[in-house]
């Protein structure tokens, strides 16, 4: 297995941008459910679907642009100062997105509060800059950032949707239940974030374990 893997990776680093760079972030290397990165915004701003979507899009924006700039400058940045430079680039795009959200919707800016500025310290973004963008071409880095960003947004929506449905009885502000429904307030409080994340991780790990088990039996059969 390991022997057959090796040449594939070498070819992978030479080939042109492919859809795989995009798709891997959605599921196989999902930043939240598989890599468990960026837990601060995952837990803090997913108390409603709209907040989760806005946070996901803001993070995707920063991720794609910082990946692009890091990749474009990768031969220009000496390795001794790379982390400082990456943080500078990431902080710039976070400031940009902060102003853009204020210009689009003050209410959204108020709802996300300090967590927009905290995108700077989201280890997902620095992680992709260091692990991927600094070693890959511009096109592949953009696709990687886009895939990871969409995967991150998908994960935030998974949490935000469940928490809003149970905690407020609505989804994206539309009431789902008759007036008698008593919302589970705990779900929109911080503890609800941990409960929901735990259940999603449980589901993902179950799926992974099942797939692994099936792969082993499939190989044995072959």
């Amino acid at each position, binding site marked *: 297995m390991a022997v057959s893997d090796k040449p594939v990776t070498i070819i992978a680093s030479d080939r042109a941008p492919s859809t795989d760079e995009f798709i891997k972030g959605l599921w196989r290397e999902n930043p939240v459910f598989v890599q468990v990165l960026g837990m601060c915004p995952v837990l803090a701003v997913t108390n409603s679907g709209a907040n989760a979507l806005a946070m996901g899009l803001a993070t995707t924006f920063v991720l794609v642009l910082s990946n692009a700039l890091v990749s474009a400058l990768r031969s220009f940045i*000496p390795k*001794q*100062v790379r982390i400082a430079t990456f943080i500078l680039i990431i*902080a710039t795009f976070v400031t940009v997105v902060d*102003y853009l959200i204020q*210009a689009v919707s003050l209410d959204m800016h108020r709802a996300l509060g300090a967590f927009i500025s905290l995108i700077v310290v989201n280890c997902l973004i620095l992680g992709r800059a260091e692990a991927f963008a600094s070693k890959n071409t511009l096109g592949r880095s953009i696709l990687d950032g886009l895939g990871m960003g969409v995967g991150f947004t998908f994960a935030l929506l998974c949490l935000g949707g469940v928490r809003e449905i149970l905690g407020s009885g609505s989804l994206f502000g539309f009431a789902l239940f008759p007036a008698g429904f008593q919302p589970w*307030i705990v779900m*929109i409080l911080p503890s609800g974030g941990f409960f929901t994340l735990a259940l999603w991780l449980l589901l993902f790990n179950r799926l992974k374990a099942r797939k692994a088990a099936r792969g082993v039996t499939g190989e044995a059969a072959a």
Partner: protein
Amino acid sequence: MMSPAAQQSGASRPPAWPMYRALVGVGLVCGLLIVTVFVLTGPVIVRNEAAALQAAVFQVLPGAVSSRSFTLAGDDSLRPAVDGDDPQATVHAGYDAMGELLGIAIPAQGMGYQDVIRILYGYSPQREAVVGMQVLASKETPGLGDKIEKDPAFLANFRALDVALAADGQSLAQPVSVVKSGAKTSPWQIDGITGATISSKAIGNMLWHSTAYWVPRLYPLQRELARGGGEHGG
């Protein structure tokens, strides 16, 4: 000439110029980018903030279609507000379609359960009452403290909250006070919210302090404010 020892240590250190070039270069590009976005979005953000304030003024003064902002001058007279005035010391007179003064929207703030709560409330000198209240900013607990923003029964307290002046004109006849939910008996009392005691008391306290300061000052100025509407109702 460098000594051999210095040369040796210099050779083991990485060259400084590429690092310097990378940090300064990237810093310059990033700085330019931020300034560009700031300049482009700045006017839009200011416009959004003004629109949000305008909407809040119309919300707390039902029927208002135009407004003008004033700030207190040193001798307790009003002058039109200009950019840079303290927003907490600026009030907004609201006028109906005929240019008649409907009331004055007044900002207030105070400590809630989590953080400072900022509100805007409408004061009607004709009715000597608070006629509307809106929470502008709060970080109260979702599902509990944030009921101060949405709970219809709580917001109904501010449709006709009595803030009449005492006979001397210097203080309120009855200060605004918060009572337990359902225990309201007088028009100057606010029915609190069960489960949001601290947040609803915070609103009451803000109103108590703010009305005690503003009502004795604004009540005598209502004619001046009414004229302000006739001249510039726009």
